[in-house]
């Protein structure tokens, strides 16, 4: 069984980690993957759409996004100019349902 990559290994491979939950995990059929970094945040949804056609309209339009444990607004000019760096952790956050 493969071990979880250390931050150093992630660094070397030139990728960031993205986690999917609930409807996003269902659509991508995975919980997590690594994608090439650096990537401008403004291009994240377009990249996901190219990998998972239809995901933007069916899933992402109702999802939040976090980078390194902080919410970012992909539609906001200031946030969208941000780059996702090598080794960073991104999460796609669908509408929640605890309780």
């Amino acid at each position, binding site marked *: *069984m*493969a*071990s*979880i*990559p250390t931050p150093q290994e992630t660094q070397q491979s030139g*990728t960031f*980690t993205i*986690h999917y*939950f*609930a*409807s996003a995990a*269902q659509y991508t059929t*995975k*919980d*997590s*993957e*690594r*994608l*090439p970094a650096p990537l401008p945040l403004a291009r994240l949804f377009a990249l996901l759409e190219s990998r998972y056609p239809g995901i933007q309209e069916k899933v992402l339009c109702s999802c939040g996004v*976090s980078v390194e*444990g902080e*919410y970012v607004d992909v539609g906001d000019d200031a946030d969208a100019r941000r780059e996702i760096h090598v080794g960073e*952790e991104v*999460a796609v*956050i*669908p*509408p*929640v*349902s*605890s*309780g």
Partner: protein
Amino acid sequence: MTTQEAAPLPAHLDPTTYPRTQHNAEQNIHLTLTYTPLDPTISLSQTASPAAGANVLFLGTTRDTFDGRAVSQLSYTAYPPLAFKTLAGIAEAAVATHQLLGVSIAHRLGTVPIGEASITIAVSAGHRAAAWRAGEEVLEACKAKAEIWKREEFVDGGMEWRANADRDSEGNLVKKEGS
């Protein structure tokens, strides 16, 4: 080639990395995410105080139907980096608003058999009015904001991820604008 392999099971989905807890001693806030059964006695003991005249405990338990459709089992996943921040913010706001003496929020993850507790909330205050109100506020805020997701598997074979925003506190469908 650039084909990306699926990463191994991330730590936040690995039950062996739980229970995870966060404790704020100054405000007596206890937060727990766990894959094992919840114990309401622990929740109550965490918020107990000689200064408290009111202790409210809420247990959310898994129901065997959704809209009349028989549910066989439910499971929950969480993203702890965000969930703990959100739960801490909810608890701190409740302490400030209602002068609470303690708040405990615990959520179970993984498969939760029908009828068992998926969430426990305990709050304590000097008097009952504040404790009743705070208990409800904390629960509603958790359901609206905590980064935790519920999947229902149905006896007839289907499965669906739930979104709390679709239902109000009486279980009625919330009408959305334009639909």
